[in-house]
């Protein structure tokens, strides 16, 4: 039996069927099952080059990079919540740990990028291994509340471990190394062209998103990933067919927090600041909202969800003085308006979470799957 999963379909041998048929298990697991997936990949690669170099302003690029950062964190949360079924409200804590790692190891100690990013990921793994065992002893609701407690504990630590975190005033991140080999992402120079910080950041963040997505996708179609999904569907049955619950749950926590820490590093590098107030319940809920809106248990759902959530936030920010939002939103103490921008955001957030869970619990990903199925089976409806 071949154990290696080939990323691309059969077909190089000629004799291609009119449609890619799923003949065995390996076909089902393929990441890029057909021509269209490869076309899509090319399109994404094109956008990756085209967007920062031609089209988008620096502010727009900053938003896009933020989306990327959130996407990485959300992929991590999706591994834990979407694939393993362990609900965590403590994701913001791990993001915070990543941010402070970048601040301390990257900016303060001056470690190179290729050392402090893996270090952050390892710290994440370590924390996941420490927190994970709680999931063995506590189930469902109890776990949710313990992870909620994690946020408050984390905030206390961030506030008080002044030598590392800068206390409640937070810490600036200046001059952290951002070079990968010859590429310095704090101001990229490539083939004689110099790129701005925003452009370089975009390249860095979205390359990391691609790596994270590929890593996660490969993880969920491996033995570990199948074990995770079995635990999600019913942990008792999983245990009976021989899935090691302890290993799987702790492993899921470790992976998830490693992703979160890397997202935290990138977020710190982008906004060049880490403060204890940023890593509260609201950030955790943002991440949960992202995976709900994007689609629980899909990798690309995490990315789509980030685009939706961060994008809508940005949209409100930009239009807060416009004709249609202006009367509703107040931008300052002198502006007459009903809600502040942050409040409107939070209300919309709540409404999105409730609305999606009521009417489209599988999120935006489900819309895509439904559209795809409709075209694939056309003219039949099944």
């Amino acid at each position, binding site marked *: 039996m071949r154990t290696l999963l080939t990323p691309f379909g059969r077909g190089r041998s000629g004799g291609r069927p009119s449609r890619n048929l799923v003949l065995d298990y390996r076909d089902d697991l393929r990441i890029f099952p057909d021509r269209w997936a490869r076309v899509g990949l090319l399109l994404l690669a094109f956008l990756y080059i085209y967007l920062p170099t031609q089209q988008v302003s620096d502010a727009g690029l900053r938003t896009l990079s933020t989306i990327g950062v959130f996407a990485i964190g959300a992929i991590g949360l999706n591994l834990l919540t979407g694939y393993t079924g362990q609900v965590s409200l403590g994701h913001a804590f791990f993001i915070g740990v990543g941010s402070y790692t970048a601040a301390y190891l990257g900016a303060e100690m001056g470690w190179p990028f290729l050392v402090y990013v893996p270090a952050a990921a390892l710290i994440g793994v370590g924390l996941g291994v420490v927190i994970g065992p*709680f999931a063995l002893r*506590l189930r469902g609701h109890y776990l949710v*509340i313990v992870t909620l*407690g994690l946020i408050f504990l984390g905030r206390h630590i961030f*506030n*008080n471990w002044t030598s590392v975190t800068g206390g409640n005033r937070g810490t600036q991140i200046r001059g952290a190394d951002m070079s990968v080999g010859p590429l310095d992402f704090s101001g990229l120079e490539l083939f004689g062209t110099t790129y701005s910080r925003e452009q370089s950041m975009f390249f860095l963040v979205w390359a990391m998103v691609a790596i994270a997505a590929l890593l996660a996708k490969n993880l969920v179609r491996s033995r570990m990933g199948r074990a995770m999904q079995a635990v999600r569907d019913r942990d008792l049955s999983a245990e009976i067919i021989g899935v090691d619950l302890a290993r799987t749950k702790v492993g899921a926590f470790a992976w998830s927090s490693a992703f979160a820490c890397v997202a935290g590093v990138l977020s710190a590098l982008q906004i060049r600041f880490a403060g204890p107030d940023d890593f509260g319940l609201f950030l955790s809920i943002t991440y*949960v909202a992202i995976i709900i809106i994007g689609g629980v248990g899909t990798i690309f759902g995490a990315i789509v969800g980030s685009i939706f959530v961060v994008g809508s936030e940005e949209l409100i920010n930009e239009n807060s003085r416009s004709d249609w939002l202006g009367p509703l939103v107040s931008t300052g103490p002198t502006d007459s308006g009903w809600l502040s921008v942050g409040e409107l955001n939070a209300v919309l957030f*709540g409404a999105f979470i*409730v609305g999606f*869970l009521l009417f489209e619990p599988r999120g935006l990903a489900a819309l895509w799957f439904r559209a795809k199925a409709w075209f694939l089976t056309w003219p039949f409806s099944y």
Partner: protein
Amino acid sequence: MSALAPVLAVTGTELVQNLIGGLALGSKYALIALGFVVVFRATGVINFANGAFVLVGAYMTYQFFQTWELNFYLAIVLSMIFGFLLGIVLEAIVLRRLVGEAPFTVIMVTIGLLFILDNLVTAIWGASNLNLGDPWTGSVVEVAGVQVPHRDLWAMGFTGVVLCGFLLFFRYSSMGLAMRATAMDPEAALAQGISARTVYRVTWGIAGLVAALAGTTFATGTGNLQPGLGLLALAAFPAMILGGMDSPLGAVLGGLIIGLVQQLTQLLAPEYMEWAGRSPEIVVPYVVMIVILLVRPYGLFGTPEVRRV
């Protein structure tokens, strides 16, 4: 007490004073925890929106008392009735559709409601601290040299009354019996002719009612009425967990323990726990909760979940 006092860096009176303060704080937590427990018992849902109910209740009391200038006690009753209606309406619009869904879904929906309601409250009443202006603030009862604020007495009294009310209600009223039956096995309860719909609706109503009372007790005092109350209510989670999520008596005991621990930490930390950093009393409830959960995963008085294959 006074024998212990010389060992500690506080006087006996100070200690007693703080113990009473802790009990008062604890009984406020207990009130919130009771709201959590009543919903969890009947529907198996952790109701994050309870924090919002607390907030809305506090502000509605303010609205009735200060803005519409009604009698203070009447204002509390009206606010509780409003809380009851709010619970019923939310159940009818949103939560009824989620009966039988996974816990994750329901928890997230209640969190969504929490965000919506919290921010609507801020939008309506503003973000600054308000004075509830209750008649209890400032007056104290002096017992043997120990000063007990009036509002602490009221908080403890309310908790006692609500707890007794719960125990009697669940034990003797037919609605309480229906709730217990539904909690135990919804299908069997339905087969006995119990309307699960009514049970769920009344449950959410009661949660809103108790939360309004809890919010009012938290809002008493000077400048204590502020939007942060909604998140403060989350600090009652350790209380609920500590007692086990389905036991009203446990919730009250859990609340009292958390209140005492918090108050004593605040008193003793500057002296003995310098390593714990500034204001460790904020996180102490969570630490206590985690430790207790590791020893007893279903809390002190909770029903262990039996897993059958």
